């Protein structure tokens, strides 16, 4: 035979390596809980505490945006995650598509600590049948007061300020940016009215974009802390995490009084989860006020979701409070109408 031994050897090594790889992959067993979460969103200390108390092994995979998480869940089906942490719009999509397991409230007694205000905002699942809020927060504007000129506007019109031309960034996210413009014009951040949307687009293209240096959802915090951006449309926790505590007084963070776009991140159990028992236990564990206080302290978050936790918190100065969000709109799923946003966003982003 001419099948040379080299090829045979090659194939053997190939098979062995495949075998070794398959051994590597751990299959979910009774004692394992797979989380699919935003990066840095669950402090290691809390996870360790949970592992110690229950003996369950927690394995965390991270995503950086809802869309990433969803693209994967949609294409691959649920690949063995027990808890996923989507924001409200994606929570409602997942409920509509019947991807989520119904929660057993008996196993989550700590639900009683959840602030009723949230139930009001969470119109997609008011009774927490499928989702438990993890945290309610908001984007806003951070200004570096050591660099920005005196007398800047403390609302969305700050992006029209030509004195800071080339020193300002907005999030690279159509719902956030169009939402901001809509709120500034006095409309709903979830509007589907084409005229309102087109006004918002014009405001961004003619007034705001010329002064921006970048649409940035990834590294705005680093650029802000480095003095590259003087004004950033941002999520506050990222910015504050990047800057040493003793320099925090140079950051002016605010949610514009017109309101902005806010979010509720939820914990959900996807259908097909292998360890639903442990998932319920984890959700309950998180909302134990003592544990929840640790989570808030870690990120200097205000107690918007679980108000009881504030009793146990060490930190009491926050970037924003629940009241700041009173005019803000929660980002909702718009179904078919999202295409209107897409079309405008293409013009904003791709045409110079």
């Amino acid at each position, binding site marked *: 035979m001419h099948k040379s031994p080299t090829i045979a050897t090659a194939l053997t090594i190939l098979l062995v390596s495949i075998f070794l790889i398959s051994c590597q992959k751990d299959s979910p067993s009774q004692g394992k809980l797979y989380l699919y979460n935003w990066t840095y969103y669950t402090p290691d200390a809390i996870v360790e505490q949970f592992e110690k108390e229950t003996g369950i092994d927690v394995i965390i995979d991270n995503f950086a945006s809802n869309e990433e998480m969803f693209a994967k869940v949609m*294409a691959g089906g649920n690949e063995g995650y027990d808890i996923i942490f989507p924001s409200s719009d994606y929570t409602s999509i997942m409920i509509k598509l019947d991807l989520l397991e119904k929660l057993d409230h008996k196993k989550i007694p700590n639900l009683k600590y959840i602030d009723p205000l949230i139930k009001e905002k969470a119109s997609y699942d008011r009774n927490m049948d499928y989702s438990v809020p993890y945290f309610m927060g908001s984007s806003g504007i951070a200004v570096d007061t050591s660099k920005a000129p005196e007398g800047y506007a403390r609302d969305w019109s700050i992006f029209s300020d030509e004195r800071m031309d080339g020193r300002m960034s907005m999030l690279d996210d159509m719902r956030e940016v169009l939402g901001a413009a809509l709120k500034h014009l006095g409309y709903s951040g979830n509007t589907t009215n084409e005229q309102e949307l087109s006004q918002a687009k014009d405001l961004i293209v003619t007034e705001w974009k010329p002064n*921006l240096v*970048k649409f940035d959802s990834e*590294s705005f915090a*680093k650029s802000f802390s480095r003095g590259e951006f003087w004004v950033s449309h941002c999520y506050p926790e990222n910015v504050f995490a990047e800057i040493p505590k003793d320099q925090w007084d140079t950051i002016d963070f605010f949610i514009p009084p017109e309101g902005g776009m806010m979010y509720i991140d939820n914990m959900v159990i996807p259908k097909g989860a292998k360890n639903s028992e442990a998932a319920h236990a984890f959700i309950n564990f998180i909302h134990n006020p003592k544990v929840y206080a640790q989570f808030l302290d870690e990120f200097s978050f205000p107690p918007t979701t679980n108000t009881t936790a504030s009793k146990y918190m060490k930190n009491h100065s926050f970037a924003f409070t629940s009241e700041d969000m009173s005019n803000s709109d929660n980002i909702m799923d718009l179904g078919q109408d999202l295409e209107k946003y897409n079309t405008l966003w293409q013009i904003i982003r791709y045409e110079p």
Partner: protein
Amino acid sequence: MRKLLKPREREQMLGTAYAFPMGIWFTLFFTIPLGIIVLYSFLKRGLYGGVEWEFTLDAYKQMFNPSFGRVVIRTLWISVLATLGCILIAIPCGYAMAKSKYQTVLLFLIIIPFWTNSLIRIYAWISILSTEGFVNSLLIKLGLIDQGLKLIYNNGAVVLVLIYMYLPFAILPLFTTIDKFDFSLLDAARDLGASKLEAIIKVMFPNIKSGLSTAFIFTFIPIFGAYTVPLLVGGKDSTMIGNIIVDQVSKTRNWPLASAFSMVLTFISLVGVFWMLYNGKREQMQSKKTTQQSLEQNIKKHHLIRGEK
């Protein structure tokens, strides 16, 4: 031509034994998945991602849109600039490495930086180029400028970092081909009175055509589909095609449009690749003949003249 004398069956069997493992691999893990993508580009988009089983040309219609057109043009000029930069730098580098005694060390020096995660290196570039970064501080200290220049978040920075990211992909193939090049041909040409540059362009370049086209393909194509570099060091108007495709999949959830875009991209690049492979091969064969013939002739003449003396 003696190859043809070998028994046909033996050749068939050997060729199959050598090439089929790869053939099967590609069929399973590339051709079939690719077929799925082709199929997707003709289907209706699902509202929440994925597709619905309904034939439509919507995706291809959506592609013809002025916003996308601008991005395509931008992608083209950025890729051409960055590729040219890579190859122009890579030729002398490959040449120097081929001539050097320390080839392996140099090879490692070229590759080692790339064992550090690319995102980390992109971040490093951001801190080098930023207003209060290393370059600006240095220039200020030297008294050349008194205020930081805006070096980052523009298309220039995108080109620079792209060159940085893909340089080794140009150096490696050029080094491999230049290494095999018979440098005595250069000396011969020099003996015949060609200037150094002339000798390199007329004698060496035709002989390293395959390396040049490989370098071109290795750099141009990944740069053309670049995603992270324009995203992280680009400014508000630095979007490239790669960003559009990712946005279509992950943000607007329009899978058919993303598939259609990829189909067109694949088609264009394929035409380019085949054209270049074909051209490179043909010219290489021609030039080999002609340089060899002319050299032989010249050497003969040379000897004749010498002999006369």
